[in-house]
C-alpha cells in the first residue's frame, strides 16, 4: 500500500483507539482528581463492562441493536453499582488512605479477574455490532488528467468504527457539560477543591466519593461496551487499558479533563501510526519515554495544576 492511504488507515485505526482510551482514562482521572486516590482496579471495571455487555446482549437476543443498546445502558450502570459497593466495602473503611487504596484496588482487581475466569470462562466472546458495513475509502492522485480519485486496495473503515469515534466525542462533551454546568458537577468540583470546606458547607462528601468512584468505573465500562463489538470480551482485556490510562493521565495532568483528552489523542494516534510504520514496541517505548519526560520536566502534566 502507498504511503498516503496507509497513513490515512493508521490515523483512522489510531482514532478508534484514542476515542476509547479517552473515555477510559477520563474515569481514572476523575477518581484521582476528586478523591485523590489511584484506582488500580480501573482496568478490571473496563473488563467487567465488556463481559456484562456480552451477557446482556446474549440474554436479550433479538436484533443485535437491541442487545447493544441494552448493554450500553445496563453494563455501565451495573459496573457503577459494583464500584460503589467496593467504595463502601473497602475504600471508605481505610479512610481513602492513598497507599491502602492502591492495595485494596489491586486485590479487588484480581478478585474480579478470577471471578470472571470462573464464571465467564477463558474464551474471548463477541458481541454483535448494531450495524457494521464496510466503507471503502477513496484516495486521490495527480495523474495525467489532473486530480483523480480511486479506491486503493484495503483502504476501508467500518461504519461501526466511525460510530465509536462519534459516540466517544458526544460522551466526552456531555461529561464536560455535566461537570461544568450541572449541580452534581458543582458539588464534585467543590469536593475536589477542598474536601473539609465542602463538608462544612453541607456537601455529603462520603456520598460524593461513592458517586465519583461509581462514575469513574462506569466510564470505563462505557468505553468497553463501545469497543466490545470490535474486540471481544475476555477476562484479561483490562490490562492494556489500565496501563495506557495511567500513561494518559500522567501526561495530561491528573484530574484535568482537557489534558486527559489531549493526551489520549496523542497516545492513541501515535500508537496507531508508529506501530504501523515502525514497530509496536517502538510505540510503547516512546509513550513510556514521554511519561518519563513529563515527570521530570512538568510533573503536574500538560494541563495539571501545580500542587499547592
Amino acid at each position, binding site marked *: *500500500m502507498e504511503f498516503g*492511504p*496507509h497513513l490515512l*488507515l*493508521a490515523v483512522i*485505526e*489510531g482514532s*478508534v*483507539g484514542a476515542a476509547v482510551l479517552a473515555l477510559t482514562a477520563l474515569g481514572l482521572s476523575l477518581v484521582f482528581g476528586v478523591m485523590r486516590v489511584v484506582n488500580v482496579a480501573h482496568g478490571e471495571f473496563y473488563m467487567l463492562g465488556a463481559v456484562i455487555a456480552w451477557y446482556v446482549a446474549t440474554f436479550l437476543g433479538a436484533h*443485535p441493536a437491541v442487545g447493544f443498546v441494552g448493554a450500553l445502558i445496563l453494563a455501565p450502570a451495573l459496573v457503577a453499582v459494583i464500584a460503589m459497593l467496593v467504595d463502601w466495602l473497602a475504600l471508605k473503611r481505610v479512610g481513602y488512605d492513598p497507599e491502602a487504596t492502591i492495595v485494596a484496588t489491586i486485590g479487588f482487581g484480581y478478585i474480579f479477574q*478470577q471471578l470472571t*475466569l470462573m464464571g465467564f*470462562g*477463558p*474464551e*474471548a*466472546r*463477541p458481541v*454483535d*455490532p448494531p450495524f*457494521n458495513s*464496510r466503507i*471503502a475509502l477513496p484516495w486521490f492522485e495527480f495523474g495525467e488528467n489532473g486530480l483523480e480519485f480511486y479506491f486503493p*486496495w*484495503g483502504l*476501508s473503515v*467500518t461504519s461501526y468504527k466511525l460510530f465509536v469515534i462519534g459516540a466517544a466525542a458526544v460522551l466526552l462533551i456531555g461529561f464536560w457539560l455535566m461537570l461544568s454546568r450541572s449541580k452534581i458537577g458543582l458539588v464534585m468540583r467543590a469536593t475536589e477543591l477542598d474536601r473539609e470546606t465542602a463538608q462544612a458547607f453541607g456537601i455529603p462528601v462520603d456520598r460524593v466519593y461513592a458517586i465519583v468512584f461509581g462514575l469513574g468505573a462506569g466510564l470505563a465500562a462505557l468505553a468497553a461496551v463501545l469497543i466490545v463489538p*470490535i*474486540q*471481544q470480551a*475476555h*477476562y*484479561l*482485556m483490562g490490562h*492494556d487499558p489500565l496501563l495506557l490510562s495511567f500513561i494518559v493521565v500522567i501526561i495530561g495532568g491528573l484530574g484535568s479533563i482537557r489534558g486527559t483528552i489531549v493526551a489520549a489523542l496523542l497516545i492513541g494516534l501515535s500508537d*496507531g501510526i508508529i*506501530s*504501523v510504520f515502525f514497530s*509496536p*514496541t517502538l510505540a510503547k517505548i516512546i509513550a513510556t519515554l514521554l511519561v518519563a519526560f513529563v515527570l521530570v520536566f512538568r510533573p503536574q502534566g500538560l494541563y495539571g495544576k501545580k500542587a499547592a
Partner: protein
Amino acid sequence: MTQTNRRTLLKSAAAGGLLAANPLLGRFASAQSAAPIKLGFQQHVTGIGAAYGRWYGRTTDAAVKMINDAGGINGRPVEIVAEDDGTDPKRGAEVLEKFANQHGCDAAFGALFSHVVIGSAPAAGELKLPNFVVSEGHHVASGMLNRYTLQPGITDVKSQVQAMAPFVANTLGKKVTMVFPDFAFGHDHRDYFTAAIEAQGGEVLEHIAIPPTETSFTKYFPKIPRDTEVLYHVMVGPAVLTFVKELGEFFGPSAPALFGFLDSLEAVDLASPGLEFLEGSYFWEGNPRYAQEDQSEFDKTFRAAVGVDANGASISDPADVSTYSHMFGCWETLHIIKAGMEAAGYQGPADRAKLIEAVEAMTYIPESQANPQGAKVFNGKTHQVFGHQYISQVQDGKLVKVHTTSIDDTFYPDEADYISQSF
C-alpha cells in the same frame, strides 16, 4: 502428647470406613503397590493460553477416567495433580519443581505454549522429571531441549507446514504472504514454511510478525503486497477472532486465497458474526473439529468421552467451542505414558529413566482408541512424533476435510539425538 478421645476415634473409624468403601481399592489391589501413579499436569488455567488449558483439562479428565476404568497403569490408579502455570515460562519451571519435590509426581505433561515449554525444559532436566509436552513447537525435535522432554502425542510445526506446502503451491498459488505471531511458535512457521514453499517453486513475498498480545490488527494488513496470491495466517491467543474479522473487513470483496492454521480459530465459533468471508477458504486442522462423513469409531468414542458434539463444541454449551486440533494430544500423551510405564515395568520415581527409554523405543503407533487422531510414528532420537495432517475447507459454515497427508509427507532429517545424552 496426643490424647485418644471419642472424637479422634470416631474420625479414624470413619476414615477406615471410607477407605473400605472405596471401590477403586479393590480393583487396583493386584498391583505390587496400590499407591496411585501421580502425573503432574502443567495446565494453562490462566493467562493467554486459558482457552486451551480448559480443554486440555477436560480431555485429560476423560483420558484418565478411561485408563482407570480399564485398570489403571500396571494395576495402579492414575492420579492427576493439576497446577496452573499462568501460561508463563517462569511459573512453568516452578510448577515442575512443585511436581517433583512437593507432590512426588512420577512424570509431568501438558505444557502447550512454546515459550512456556522452552522455559520449563531446563527444570525438567535438572529435576530429572520426565516432561511430556503437548505443544506443536519444533523446539523438541530441534535439539534445543533435553532428554527429559518428550513430545509423543502431537506433531510439530515443521512437519505440519512441510506437509501443507505442496497443497498451497499447487492448489492456491505460489506467491504467499505470511502473518504469524511474533514468538517461537510463529517463528517456526516463518522459517519452515518459507523453506517448504520455496522447495515447491513458490515464494514468500512478505513476513508480517504480530506481537502475541496485540488486540487490533487492521494496521498491519497494508503491509500485505498487492500481488499476493495466498495469504497464510496463523494466530494464537484471545484476540484471534478480532484478527480474522478484521482480515475480512480489510479485504472486502477482493481477497487473495486464504490458507490458515486452525490455531487462528481455536475455541472460536465458526458461526461468529463477521466470519462469513471465510467460506471457501482452507485450514490446516490437527484433528477435524466437525465430525466428518468418514468419522472413525475411535473419534466417536473420544468425542463422547470428552463431551464434544459433532460441531466440536461442548455438549452442554454450543457456544463453548473446543480446541479440537490440539487437545487430542493430551489424550494420546497419557496413553503413551501408560504404554511406556507398562513396557518399563514402572514402579516408582527410581524408574523414571526406564520410562523414557521405553518411550524412546516406540516406533509405529497404530490408530486405536488410545490414538484416535490417527496412526503415528515416533522418533526416539528426536523425541518427536509424526502423524497425518488434515486440510479442511469451510463449506456452508463448517469445516469439511478435503485432504489428508500421509505420515511420509511430514518427515524431515533428524536434527538431534537425545538418546546420546546421559540421564
